[in-house]
């Protein structure tokens, strides 16, 4: 009996101990944690109140000090100092206001757990107010725009231009309709004035692509006068994408976007990429794709605005580094700093990088600080991460077109569960990676006078709901344009009515097959051979005598023929005279390069060309004195020139020597790197294939100097990969201030009907001969 009692006591003791432990862990620990949290919370409150009160007092003291300074400077007429103190006063006042708001509202509400009511208000409110249209009207004659009445203004961007909202007059409306531009409401006038601080280069840059932009309907009107330049575009009332992103995240929580917010965000990017596709098909690229340049209207549709940096894809200008950091491809900056021309690269890929970084910023609510290596840390479908990665990948590995990116986006957007979509399910990962939706008409000319019509034809939704956007995307994929039904005549609000067979959630029909963008190797080879033949014919014609640039097939006028004949006789006579004269005097250019030992030259080496110092020894006069035997080499040589324009006299002379030397040797010089041989100081615009080759070679070489051993190996590999198009690369690069140009020849073991050493020697000899 006693044993049982003891056993029961022990058992009760054990149970009691267990209960105590359970009580301690389940009740007391959370209780103490709660007490700790409360103490921390109260200390945070007290600390915040004390700190903000101290800041408030400090700001008020400074404000009191600044006021007399402002007034005193105003009285004595030192307006710049007055402005300086005024700005400081404004800064202190806004700081004091912020502290007051925290002391009176934010901290007390946070203490009682209602901080959600005012969370972020101190940032959101000023941002909205700063971006709101104002009633500020332009002053003086410079602020009048014929045919438009100004009704307000917008906050200026980083370019320094002024932005006004205007109402076109009846005459202007009629003019727009005559040009086929419909549905124009209020417009935005972006004006650059020398008086307002804009610079002439800025005005020139902004006005450069105007005609092309007008053809696309991006620009409605423009005017360039002696002191100002303005252009008119549609007004899109709405909010910047950056602000919309903040709202999406505020409604979703700290973990990342909710499924609904994700759909909205993807819809904005799809609209953006659709618009970019229109730009690219019209031969333009935007160059400044970033959240601030995307406006989301009341219907939820995203519009790309600001055409300040829009450029032609085939522009002969040098790439510039303009754009916005974090949304600008670093590769573009590298190429720009190397002096690469716009037409030598595919500008559309830089826009796609921007679109990828915009998508990243929507998902992360942050900038892609790490470029292409930036990592998505918030909740995000794997397929969307893949799209970002692909869009921001290395230049030659990213999407080939906006259409390809849009196809991927549409698959994710239209999926019932975007998180279930795997990267392998994306069109770019399947066999259709190089195909594009037929409805986008990739590669076809753009037959539209109106930008809005273009985007509408792409299926962009005007109704703002996500459903509308998704249906529109489905319609786009199906190749049917959506119908638009106006629902509110007073405000002009409309909604998209999708075709009957396309509904939300329905599986998108398979994309119709489109021709492959990438040509087969055989076609590329044939094309390359054709270009080579053309290049040979061009060189032959330039060597054989006169040719008329631009219109060689036109019959020559008799009078012109006589004049040309007389000129030729005169030139020959002059040349004979000069030749005789030169027999009695030393040549003007001292060629310091040692005579090439043709048998011992390596397969790749450098020819350091001397800089001509004697202006009297004009190159043109010496090239007609060839050596007794010109070596003839049949090979396709790609010439790449890293010398930035404008070329100095010495550089130009040296480049002409290289150009003429190569043509004398008989090689087919591809590329646009050298000056034309007809005496004009212009660059030839290369064939599109040459441009691709040059861009490819530049990318392959990267930042390596041309004379490094690594470069020789890289170029050897590159030449092996492109052996069907090029057999040799002649790379001209600067060495530094007052240094001669460096001409480097890269070639494989066998080049055409000769070898690398012979070609090296021939080029060397020809260039030296031409330089004399």
């Amino acid at each position: 009996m006693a044993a049982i009692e003891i056993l029961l006591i022990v058992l009760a003791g054990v149970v009691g101990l267990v209960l105590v432990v359970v009580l301690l862990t389940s009740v007391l620990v959370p209780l103490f944690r709660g007490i700790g949290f409360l103490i921390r919370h109260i200390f945070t409150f007290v600390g915040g109140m004390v700190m903000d009160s101290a800041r408030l007092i400090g700001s008020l003291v400074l404000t009191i000090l600044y006021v007399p300074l402002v007034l005193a400077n105003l009285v004595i007429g030192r307006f710049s100092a007055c402005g300086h103190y005024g700005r400081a006063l404004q800064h202190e006042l806004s700081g004091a206001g912020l502290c007051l708001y925290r002391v009176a509202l934010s901290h007390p509400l946070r203490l009682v757990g209602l901080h959600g009511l005012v969370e972020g208000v101190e940032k959101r409110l000023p941002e909205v107010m700063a971006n709101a249209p104002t009633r500020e009207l332009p002053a003086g004659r410079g602020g009048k725009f014929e045919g438009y009445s100004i009704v307000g203004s917008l906050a200026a961007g980083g370019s320094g231009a002024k932005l006004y909202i205007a109402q076109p007059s009846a005459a202007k409306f009629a003019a727009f309709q005559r040009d086929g531009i419909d549905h124009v409401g209020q417009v935005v006038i972006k004006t650059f004035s020398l008086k307002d601080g804009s610079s002439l280069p800025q005005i020139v840059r902004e006005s450069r692509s105007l005609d092309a932009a007008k053809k696309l309907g991006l620009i409605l009107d423009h005017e360039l006068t002696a002191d100002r330049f303005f252009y008119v575009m549609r007004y899109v009332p709405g909010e910047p994408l950056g602000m919309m992103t903040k709202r999406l995240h505020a409604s979703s929580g700290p973990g990342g976007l909710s499924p609904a917010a994700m759909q909205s965000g993807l819809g904005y990017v799809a609209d953006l990429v659709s618009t970019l596709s229109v730009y690219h098909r019209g031969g333009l690229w935007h160059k400044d794709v970033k959240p601030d340049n995307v406006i989301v209207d009341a219907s939820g549709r995203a519009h790309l605005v600001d055409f300040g940096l829009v450029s032609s894809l085939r522009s002969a200008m040098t790439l510039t580094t303009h754009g916005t950091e974090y949304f600008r491809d670093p590769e573009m900056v590298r190429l720009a700093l190397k002096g690469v021309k716009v037409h030598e690269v595919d500008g559309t890929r830089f826009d796609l990088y921007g679109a990828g970084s915009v998508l990243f910023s929507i998902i992360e609510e942050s900038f892609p600080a790490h470029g292409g290596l930036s990592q998505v840390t918030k909740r995000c479908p794997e397929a969307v991460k893949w799209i970002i990665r692909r869009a921001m990948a290395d230049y030659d590995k990213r999407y080939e077109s906006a259409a390809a990116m849009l196809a991927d986006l549409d698959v994710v957007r239209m999926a019932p569960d975007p998180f279930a979509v795997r990267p392998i399910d994306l069109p770019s990962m399947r066999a259709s990676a190089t195909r594009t939706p037929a409805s986008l008409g990739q590669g076809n000319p753009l037959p539209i006078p109106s930008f809005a019509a273009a985007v509408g034809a792409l299926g962009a939704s005007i109704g703002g709901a996500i459903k509308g956007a998704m249906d529109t995307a489905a319609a786009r994929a199906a190749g049917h344009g959506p119908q638009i039904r106006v629902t509110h005549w007073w405000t002009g609000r409309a909604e998209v009515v999708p075709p009957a067979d396309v509904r939300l959630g329905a599986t998108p029909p398979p994309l119709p097959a489109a021709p492959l963008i990438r040509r087969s190797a055989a076609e590329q080879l044939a094309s390359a051979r054709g270009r080579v033949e053309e290049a040979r014919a061009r060189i032959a014609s330039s060597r054989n005598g006169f040719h008329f640039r631009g219109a060689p097939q036109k019959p020559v006028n008799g009078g012109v023929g006589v004049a040309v004949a007389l000129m030729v006789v005169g030139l020959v006579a002059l040349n004979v005279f000069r030749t005789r004269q030169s027999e009695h005097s030393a040549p003007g250019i001292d060629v310091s390069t040692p005579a090439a030992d043709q048998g011992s030259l390596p397969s790749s080496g450098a020819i350091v060309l001397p800089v001509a110092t004697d202006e009297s020894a004009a190159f043109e006069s010496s090239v007609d004195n060839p050596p007794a035997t010109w070596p003839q080499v049949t090979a396709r040589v790609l010439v790449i020139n890293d010398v930035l324009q404008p070329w100095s006299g010495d550089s130009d002379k040296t480049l002409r020597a290289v150009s003429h030397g190569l043509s004398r040797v008989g090689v087919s010089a591809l590329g646009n790197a050298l000056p034309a041989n007809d005496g004009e100081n212009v660059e030839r615009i290369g064939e599109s294939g040459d441009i691709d080759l040059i861009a490819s070679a530049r990318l392959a070489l990267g930042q390596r100097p041309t004379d490094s051993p690594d470069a020789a190996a890289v170029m050897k590999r590159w030449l092996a990969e492109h052996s069907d198009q090029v057999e040799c690369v002649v790379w001209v690069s600067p060495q530094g201030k007052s240094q001669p140009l460096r001409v480097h020849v890269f070639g494989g073991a066998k080049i055409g009907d000769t070898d690398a050493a012979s070609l090296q020697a021939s080029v060397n000899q020809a260039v030296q001969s031409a330089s004399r």
Partner: protein
Amino acid sequence: MLTPVNMDFIGRLRANDQSAWFEVWETFGPVVRSQLSKWGKGRIGSQTVQDLSQETLAALSESIERFDPSRGARFSTWLLAIAKHVLGDELDRRHAQKRGGNKRAAELDESWMASSTDPGVDAQYEAGVFRAKVEAAIRVVEKETEFSDFAIFSMRVLEGKPGKEVAEALGISEPTVSRRLAKVREVLRERLVDVIRIYSFTEDEKDEAARNGLLATPKQERSAADDALFDEAICEIYHRQMDLRRQDQAARLR
């Protein structure tokens, strides 16, 4: 000791090759800015540090002519000396503008460093420079490898996803993932050697990779455990570098 490779790199900088300057600033800018902010805490604002740009650096090619790295200075020290010089010059220019007079010549020991208790280059900065070199090598590998191969590397190593998950996402088998990952890893090992050689002046700097456990084992003796350690080290370096870039970005946008 200068090798032909890094000598040529210095030559490009001296020739005012802006793309070379851009490369340097893209790679090492955040580390240098972080160090300058630390030194100038309380004396110079973050905005002043951020004003250091590749254009400013490029404009100082003449000062590089006077700098001789063959005296035994480390690349990291050399880099910081240039940045310090530029920042000092910028501050002098601002002071001169305020005074309305001519600017005086910049000095390497700048007065704004006086607030710092430790003006010497610390181990943290050296580690930061090394991480920047590893990041540069990863970028080179990104350029040189196939997109899908690098994506596998990124998902497996940088994001730390299991091989099975990567295989399912990309519709390939796990052995394929491992094989392609090994290919990228091998390229990365090679490029690490190249990049560190370019951005190193001393033998001590060249051995950094081996010292940090990245290139300790020869290829023939390498095991799966070595590869796992390598991946882990790369992942850690990448994430620390990403944190640094985030801080740098926050300072720039402040």
